[in-house]
């Protein structure tokens, strides 16, 4: 084979290697992640008739609320509402704002929004050395390239599921190597966007002070910083969500999502101050009631799956019960 032929063979081999590896990745992720956009479209386009609706918004922290339990609880109290838990894993106000119009279109009677410290955290570590980040005085080719290679623009398909494969890979491996015990699983309906992993059923109990201290140190290492309310894009997004809901006469209440004592002790003071400031703004400027649940179960043992998730477990109903009471209170 001549030199050109050899070079061509090598180049084709590289391309084939990339195609094979990428194809494996695509198939793996496609079969192990859910298509959120399709789920949202399916949910919001259905005919709800005249059914009165209560929706729960938030991330996985509210995803562990049992809509079936809540349905049963409020119907026992003679309320004719259907509860829909529209929590999304990793959700934050800046992301939720993108679909708020769809939510408004189904005219919920009550929106219960669970927010926590994580909702307003920086997405990247603030200790990252930013001294190399250059302000762009001249035209920025990166911005043009980012637009060009945005996956959903290129192909018309939503390929966001390709963005962070590591989590999916870990979950897959964990399920194979240490399959979780699902005997305490419950039937949960009306939770179209959140699919609780069996790990979320497990109740974790720390056996010693050193385990507790280790958990606290792990938590300390996970904080990425929090911008002040006036520069916090999620705080700004939350206010916009509340404004839009109010403009459409949709009642909304907020509750702060629960955390373990180890988390609350590890929390930086700046977080507490900024979070408190955001809640005050909401209460005063938007006249939205805030129910504080962040430290309600901090000393409870036997309810946590990890430091910021109540277990979605048959034996744990305290969280659902308290949200049920909030619903009853707000629907009087």
């Amino acid at each position, binding site marked *: 084979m001549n030199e050109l032929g050899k*070079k061509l063979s090598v180049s084709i*081999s590289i391309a084939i290697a990339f195609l094979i*590896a990428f194809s494996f990745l695509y198939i793996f992720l496609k079969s192990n992640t859910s298509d959120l956009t399709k789920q949202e479209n399916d949910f919001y386009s259905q005919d709800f008739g005249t059914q009165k609706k209560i929706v729960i918004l938030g991330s996985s922290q509210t995803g562990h609320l049992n809509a079936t339990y809540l349905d049963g609880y409020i119907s026992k109290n003679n309320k004719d509402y259907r509860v829909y838990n529209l929590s999304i894993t990793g959700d934050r106000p800046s992301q939720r704002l993108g679909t708020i119009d769809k939510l408004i279109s189904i005219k919920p009677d009550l929106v219960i929004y669970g927010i926590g410290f994580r909702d307003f955290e920086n997405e990247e570590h603030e200790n990252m050395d930013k001294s190399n980040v*250059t302000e762009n*005085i001249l035209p920025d080719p990166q911005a043009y390239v980012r637009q060009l290679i945005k996956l959903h623009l290129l192909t018309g398909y939503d390929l966001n599921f390709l963005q*962070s494969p590591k989590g999916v*890979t870990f979950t897959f491996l964990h399920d194979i190597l240490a399959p979780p015990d699902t005997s305490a699983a419950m039937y949960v309906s009306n939770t179209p966007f959140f699919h609780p992993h069996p790990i979320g059923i497990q109740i974790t109990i720390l056996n010693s002070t050193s385990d507790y*201290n280790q958990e606290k*140190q792990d938590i300390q*290492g996970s904080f990425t910083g929090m911008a002040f309310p006036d520069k916090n894009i999620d705080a700004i997004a939350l206010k916009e969500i509340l404004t839009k809901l109010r403009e459409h006469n949709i009642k909304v209440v907020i509750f702060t999502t629960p955390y373990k004592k180890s988390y609350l002790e590890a929390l930086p003071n700046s977080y507490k101050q900024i979070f408190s400031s955001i809640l005050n703004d909401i209460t005063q400027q938007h006249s939205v009631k805030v129910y504080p649940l962040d430290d309600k179960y901090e000393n409870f043992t036997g309810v946590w799956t990890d430091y910021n998730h109540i277990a979605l477990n048959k034996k744990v109903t305290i969280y659902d019960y308290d949200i049920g009471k909030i619903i009853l209170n707000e629907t009087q």
Partner: protein
Amino acid sequence: MIFNTIDFVIFFIAVCTTIVIVKNRKFQHLFLLGASYFFFYYSSNYLITLLIFTTIWDFYLGQAIFNAQNIQKKKAILIISLAGNLGLLGFFKYADFAITQFNILGQHFDLATQIPLLNLTLPIGISFYTFHSITYTVSIYRGQMPPAKSFVEYGIFVAFFPQLVAGPILRAKDFLPQLREKIENFETGTRLRQIIINNQNLKLGVTIMAFGFLKKMFFADNIAPFVNKIFAFPIGQDSFSIIMATIAFGIQIYCDFSGYTDIAIGAALVLGFKIPINFNKPYFATSPSDFWRRWHISLSSWLRDYLYIPLGGNKKSKVRTYFNLFVVMFLGGLWHGASWNFVIWGVLHGAYLAIHKFVTDRFPVLKDHRFFKTRIGMIISIAITQYFVFLAWIAFRVKNTNDMIYAMQKYVLIDFQTSGITSLINQNRFPFVLMFLFIVLHFISYKNKNMIEKISSFRLIHWTLILVIIMMLIFFFYIGNPESFIYFQF
């Protein structure tokens, strides 16, 4: 532009394709220079003006040095060149640091004035391209090479994109001749070679790049969260956690930096350029001086040739030699960043080198003793050397002084607390698996010299399979946000 992004992959394919299609040497050089400037401009925007200024500055001063009639004039022009380069580096890198220290001193002595910080952006790669430029003017001054024939060629040497932002630090006398390589042509005599992408270089270059990406994106980026977790709040951690995090950081920084270098070397090789290796199994070094012959080789050799030897090297008295070692490593530490932790790291290595020199001078029998050439002897030498190397990594990683002192105490004075060991390993299984895997693979590559060259000579189908495995490991464990290379901050 950082290597571990789709932007760079597209850029590199575009550059290679253009070089292959357009077989005109002048165009290729101009295109390579333009591509390198684009590469730099992509993430540095207006700061490209500093790169261009440095290039123009030393190109014309290099010619002036060469044309100067006497040694005093050559020296004067060289000093001007160095002042410009180091002045620029010093201003952008150390001005705010100096102001901060001045303000601290001022507070200590109750002075009323506080100088406001300039909040300068640190231009990416300035430490590297400044040193490239210095090798050029000094080499001309020393009579080791004539000036570059054209601005374009000199511009490519300074801005060559594979090594522009984090090395290896190139020497002008090694790189520039590659741009003027001649080929024999029996019909027309000799002529200057075009940039040619040949099959052998392509396969070897891509293999080196693939392993570079693997080291960076699979090992370094997946070990980083564990290191960040422990060193974010080291106070209160037990010795086992600190030691494991230190080892993890040592592996992380090696994989990060050598991974980057491999991508740089591989990319340069694909284009037909040979740039020097920067790492040679540093964690198998048997002494502090051996470590510096294996770690960041281009920097340590630069410091040796342009600082240590001009200071007198080991040709003066013993005390002067130890002093020279200290100064070189102090400045080497400071080069890494305007922060006391880097200075401490440099001073520690200076101390290691000086003490090692003192011991081997005082007890010359130790230096060539038979025992240290046996397997047990080598293992002991490696273990002792790496113990101190990893101790110094704590200073490199932990900026806060109290945290650093605590972590070093826990590293040296082991507390033997075992209660948290199981929990630490359970919660960080993947990083621990990676650390173990790295140690095994690193040992295998130490025993099998030229492993990369052997892999690149596999049959195409087997070679493709290796690439598939490497890509799958990278893709399946990709975090989502590309982590910057550690050495970009220098």
